[in-house]
């Protein structure tokens, strides 16, 4: 295990593209939070009756403990940024044929795949750590709230699971296609365009069967923030109630993804 982590660290520590994308993620997540916060302020800081009505209706989603939920939701929309790193981790190995060399040098095929599992896990944890820092900073710098700082901190766990699951899907696409641009194009198109359309269509026409689509399974770990839920309270309550079952679905899907990766890697020629 230590050898796998050390070797992966040797691979990434001087990989500029990795640090650029991590830097971009580190900038974009607080940026997203800042934009959402600004939009909220621009509506609620007005002095008119309408502004006060909105404020009393939606409360402040950036105070503790609701900030955990709000920022988990907004940050989860941007998982495609770290997915670039994850896809490059695996497609680089095929481009440079170093996947073969790692085996020739003495790793088992399982060790090679375990090293990639560790990579995806570490990126997920890094992104989660970033999210936690932003939540704490945002929560402490926003006045109001109930004072229950850790009241909804369980969203950090849900965010972490969701990120790992969705990055695992990105990894699978990279692993199967082996070509970086093709994998990135397909994953990002599916993430941003195709699946949201399919989920929308399924809600409208197919009894919401879209909840079982690969990304949507874990998307439902983090429902829309409470202030948005006030628009359709019934739907919001339903979304909250389905979190637990979606934890199970996400764990099953993510396990299946890695089972496929290990199995295919053990069987196919390199």
């Amino acid at each position, binding site marked *: 295990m230590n*050898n796998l982590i*050390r*070797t992966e660290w*040797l*691979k990434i520590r*001087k*990989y*500029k*593209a990795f640090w650029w994308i991590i830097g971009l993620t580190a900038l974009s997540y607080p940026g997203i939070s800042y934009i959402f916060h600004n939009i909220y302020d621009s509506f609620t800081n007005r002095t008119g009756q309408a502004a006060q009505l909105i404020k009393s209706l939606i409360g402040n989603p950036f105070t503790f403990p609701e900030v955990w939920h709000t920022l988990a939701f907004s940050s989860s929309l941007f998982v495609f940024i770290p997915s670039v790193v994850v896809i490059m981790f695996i497609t*680089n190995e095929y481009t*440079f*044929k*170093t996947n*073969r*060399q*790692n*085996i*020739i*040098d*003495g*790793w*088992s*095929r399982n*060790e090679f795949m375990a090293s990639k599992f560790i990579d995806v896990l570490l990126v997920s944890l890094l992104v989660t750590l970033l999210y936690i820092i932003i939540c704490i900073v945002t929560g402490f710098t926003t006045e109001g709230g109930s004072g229950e700082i850790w009241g909804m901190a369980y969203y950090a766990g849900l965010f972490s699971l969701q990120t790992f699951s969705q990055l695992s899907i990105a990894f699978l696409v990279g692993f199967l296609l082996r070509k970086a641009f093709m994998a990135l194009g397909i994953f990002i198109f599916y993430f941003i365009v195709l699946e949201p359309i399919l989920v929308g269509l399924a809600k409208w026409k197919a009894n919401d069967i879209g909840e079982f689509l690969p990304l949507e399974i874990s998307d439902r770990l983090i429902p829309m923030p409470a202030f948005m839920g006030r628009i359709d309270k019934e739907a919001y309550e339903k979304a909250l109630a389905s979190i637990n079952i979606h934890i199970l679905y996400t764990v099953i899907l993510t396990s299946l993804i890695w089972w496929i990766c290990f199995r295919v890697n053990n*069987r196919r*020629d*390199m």
Partner: protein
Amino acid sequence: MSSVLSIQNITKYYGSVRALNNVSFDIPEGSVFGILGPNGSGKTTLLSIILDVLKANNGTFSWFGHPGSPEQRKKIGSLLETPNFYHYLSASDNLKITQAISGRGVTSDIDKVLMKVNLYERRKSSFKTFSLGMKQRLAVGAALLGEPQVLVLDEPTNGLDPVGIAEIRQLIIELRDQGHTIIMASHLLDEVEKVCTHVAILKTGNLLTTGDVEEVLVDEDVVEAGAADLDALSSVLQQISKNVSIDTASKTVHAVLPKGTAKLDEINSFCFQKGVVLNHLLLKKKRLEARFFELTNN
């Protein structure tokens, strides 16, 4: 002599194409074993199977008497097909990864092998800035890391200039003299002839022959003789060989005899008794190139 590698009935298909057909042979310890064959004969496929990069459809192999495993591969320095390194890392950092995975050698050995393959001055340059020859030398350096007892080298002189080829050849000879076992695939016959002690020849996935280089090269004795009267010499030699020819360019007569039967002193004496005085007499070995074409064109 015990076997370092034993290959038993290896067969490999790519779809409907049979790349290797029931190939079996043993590689003795301390040998420089050349695997020869034209392009597409299955050399790299065979090496890829013994290094677990490809899966055989049938057959088995064992290293040091044990089935192939990651632990066995860690003891083997290998260069397979092309140099495979992380393009964004330096020569030195790439070898740190080789060292971390294989466990061969220690960090200070990295500088030693870089010196050995003349890359020490460029150790901090990234791999993507290297010429083909430098990449190849780095791959040889990676294989040498930790001085493994067994080396698998697939076309080790690929992309090298004549000086580089001579250096690698010299390195292989030094390693052979130190008792290392070297398994080398090549289509450069001259290279194999100069360094190998044993050879296996493949053609379209079939093993044509294998054994000691001397045994494989020499399947008949060719006596080259010269005299003032070549016609008279030819007539005399026809009494001991059915296959006699005059080479007008070198002004010699060639007589082919069954392997191991040519006794030069007896031939000299026989010719003298028949009134032909020899001014040249030589037992010629067939060159590997000639033998290779003979085998692979059949």
